[in-house]
Every structure is written in C-alpha cells, then in structure tokens.
C-alpha cells in the first residue's frame, strides 16, 4: 500500500486533498495538521509521498521540505499553493520539492501529479538501489582550464558518491570543497602558473593575469587530467596538471598566526582536513587524494533502505 501524508492546518483543505486521494485504490492517506506534526508522523512511519500546504503556523511548508530533503531524501514532496504564495513556492522547489498544485486546481490536477511524482520516485529508488550494488567505478577526464567544466565535474563526482553510499551529505560537501580546491590549484597555480603571492599584493592583477594566460600559449593548451576510482569503501582521486609543479615545503603555513591574513595555502589546508590522505608526486603537479567510507554513511544507507 502506498502511503501519502497530507499536511495542512486548514481542516477543510486537508479533507479536500485527502478525499481526492482516497478515491485512488491502493493509496492510504494519512493527515498532519502542520509541519511539526508531519515530522512526528514521519518519525513513526515514513510515507511514500508528502503533499503539503506552504503557510502553516507551527512549521511551514518550506522548512518541512528542507528537513525532509535532509532526513529522507527519497521521499518526494508536492506543494499545495495559494495565490500569493508563488515566491515561497519557488524557494521550496529550489529547496527540493518535487512539484506543486495550485489549491484551486486540486480536483483537476492533484491525483495525476501524485501519480506522476510517485512514478519518478520509484524509478529514483530503484536507481539508488542499483547504485548501492555497484562495486567499483573508474572514470577518467581530460579537461581544459574551464571553471564551468570543473564545477560540473565536482557535482558529477558528488552525485556518484551519493549513489554509492560512500559518505553522508555533510561529508559529501566536505569532499566537494576539497575537490574544488585541488582543481582550482591545478588550473590557476598549475596550468596557468599564477602565484598566490600576486593575489596577496593585488587580487585584480591575479585574475587579470589568469585571464590573459588562459588565451596564451603554452598555458592555453594545458589540460587537467583526472582519474577517479570509487568503491563503497574508498574513493581515490588523482588530479594532474601540465604546469611545472611546486615545492610544498615553500608554502607558508596558513595557520601560523603570522600568516593568518595572507592568501596562501588555505586550499591545501582544506584538502588535507577533509580527505583522509593527500599526497603529491615529486614534481608537485599531481595530487592523489583518498577518502575512506565514513561511519555515518552506513546509518544513512540504513535509513534509505528502510524508506
């Protein structure tokens, strides 16, 4: 039986939405009077889908969407919107709501929308279940010094990590930060050979030089080579640039009080803190970063399996 939780502080609207859904055989409709009540009920029994009002006194629909996305990312949420709540609805959709139905169109659109979203959610769950069974994935990329490509690669790898269940969401953010820092080092300091010491003097000159060099030979044709080896237990990522490399021992310690207000070395510090291992080759143009499965990942996986 598919369970749908209808959340609305208005008894009339709650009963209207619930009534429309109970007409569908196979859907069990539960009710909550506001966001707080919804969370209490989800704690006891995770529904297959939530249909919620946006404006509620205790905990509103936007906050409810945010919490459900964090705690039960595979449970889709459909919003019921009123005239005047469009802006908050947009924010809720950006936060992760799956769809919305205007309240004045519930009778026409709610059942179809629920059916459609449930179908997508089932496919998502099956996809996640399949990825949980993936034992190893290796990918290689060769990319230009293009910040959009770099950002997209970071998201790609974060999604792959989520699928494999190597880490929880917080850890995934940390890994994303470390990856960004490593790739920006490869691009700016490696391939384009722009030094942080210039940024210390004049940050505009630093970016202007990077922009100029991205159009000039030999910098322009240099590439970033990425190799990633993912398993449910460990991620290894190797990032190599075509610059001359650098000597880590020459980097000032950014945590030394004397250097706190200097711009050097913070990216490397974040990489070292967020990954289990960070090591460079002898030349200094290739970094290998390793992240091992964190304990909290197992907990998240158990929750998702239960959902």
């Amino acid at each position, binding site marked *: 039986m598919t369970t749908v939780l209808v959340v609305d502080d208005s008894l009339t609207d709650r009963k209207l939405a619930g009534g429309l859904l109970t007409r569908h055989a196979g859907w069990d409709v539960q009710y909550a009077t506001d966001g707080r009540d919804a969370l209490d009920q989800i704690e006891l029994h995770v529904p297959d889908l939530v249909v919620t009002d946006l404006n509620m006194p205790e905990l509103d629909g936007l906050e409810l969407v945010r919490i459900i996305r964090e705690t039960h990312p595979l449970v889709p949420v459909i919003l019921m919107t009123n005239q005047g709540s469009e802006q908050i609805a947009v924010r809720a959709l950006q936060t992760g709501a799956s769809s919305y139905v205007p309240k004045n169109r519930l009778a026409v659109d709610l059942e179809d929308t629920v059916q459609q979203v449930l179908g997508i959610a089932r496919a998502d769950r099956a996809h996640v279940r399949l990825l949980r069974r993936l034992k190893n994935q290796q990918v290689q990329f060769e990319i230009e010094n293009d*910040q959009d490509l*770099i*950002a997209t690669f*970071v998201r790609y790898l974060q999604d792959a990590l989520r699928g494999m269940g190597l880490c929880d969401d*917080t850890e995934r*953010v*940390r890994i*994303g*930060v470390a990856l*960004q*820092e490593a*790739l*920006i080092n490869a691009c*700016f300091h490696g391939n384009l050979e722009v030094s942080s010491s210039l*940024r210390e003097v004049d*940050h*505009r000159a630093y*970016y202007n030089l*990077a*922009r100029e060099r991205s159009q000039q030979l030999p910098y322009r044709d240099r590439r970033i080579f990425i190799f990633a080896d993912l398993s449910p237990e460990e991620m290894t990522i190797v990032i190599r640039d075509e610059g001359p490399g650098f000597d880590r021992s020459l980097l000032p310690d*950014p*945590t030394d*009080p004397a250097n*706190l*207000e200097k*711009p050097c070395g*913070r*990216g490397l*510090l*974040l990489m070292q*803190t967020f990954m289990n291992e960070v090591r460079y080759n002898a030349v200094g143009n290739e970094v290998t970063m390793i992240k091992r499965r964190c304990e909290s990942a197992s907990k998240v996986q158990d929750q998702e399996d239960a959902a």
Partner: protein
Amino acid sequence: MTSIGPFFRTASEGDVFVVEICQPVGSLSDSVVLTQLDEVLDALKSSGLAKLLVDFRQTPYFGSSLLEGLRLLWNCIHAADGKMVLCNPSQVGREILEIAKFDHLWPIVNDRAAGLALLSH
C-alpha cells in the same frame, strides 16, 4: 538590501554594514566572486561605516575564494580601525572558518542579532 550579482547582498543596519552571502561560493567561480566582491568593497567604502557583519545564513559551504574575500573585506575595515563579525555559518562553514583559523581573527556568532549586539559594544 541591495543585491550585488548572485552571490552578495548588502545593507546598512544603523552604523553596521551587513554583507549577506546568498549562495554557495566555491573556489571555482573565483574570478566572478572576486569581481562581485569588488563591488561590495566599493559599497562598503562609500558607506563610510567601519563596522562589518558578514552573514552566512544562506550559504551551506564555501572554499578558499570566499576566505580570500573575507581577508579583503577585513583589510578595508582594518584600515578604518573598524570591527568585523561573522554570523550564521553552517556546520561545515564554521569548520572551514576554524580550519583557516579565522575564528582567531574575528568573532563568529550564531545569529545576526548576536552579531549586531557584539558590534554595538
């Protein structure tokens, strides 16, 4: 509040200049972030205010580019013999600030009201 590109919003609250970071700022959009930060710096300078509150409530994470941005804002405030406070960082955000030891440079508080109160002393 005045929006400066997608990353920053600025406002004055009494004698405090408030900079709100509106979305995740990674190192990857370095040049874009720094260009917009220049506009924030210009707005800060023309405000004539020497107390700065940086509000992170809308950004769950950031990288070294924003740390660099904070350093530049601090240079501006420091030159005016002013004060700077950070507020509302996420768990990961606070972690990043502490890794960079920026908590040694400026107070980090949980909400805007606490930040404004601290700056009013």
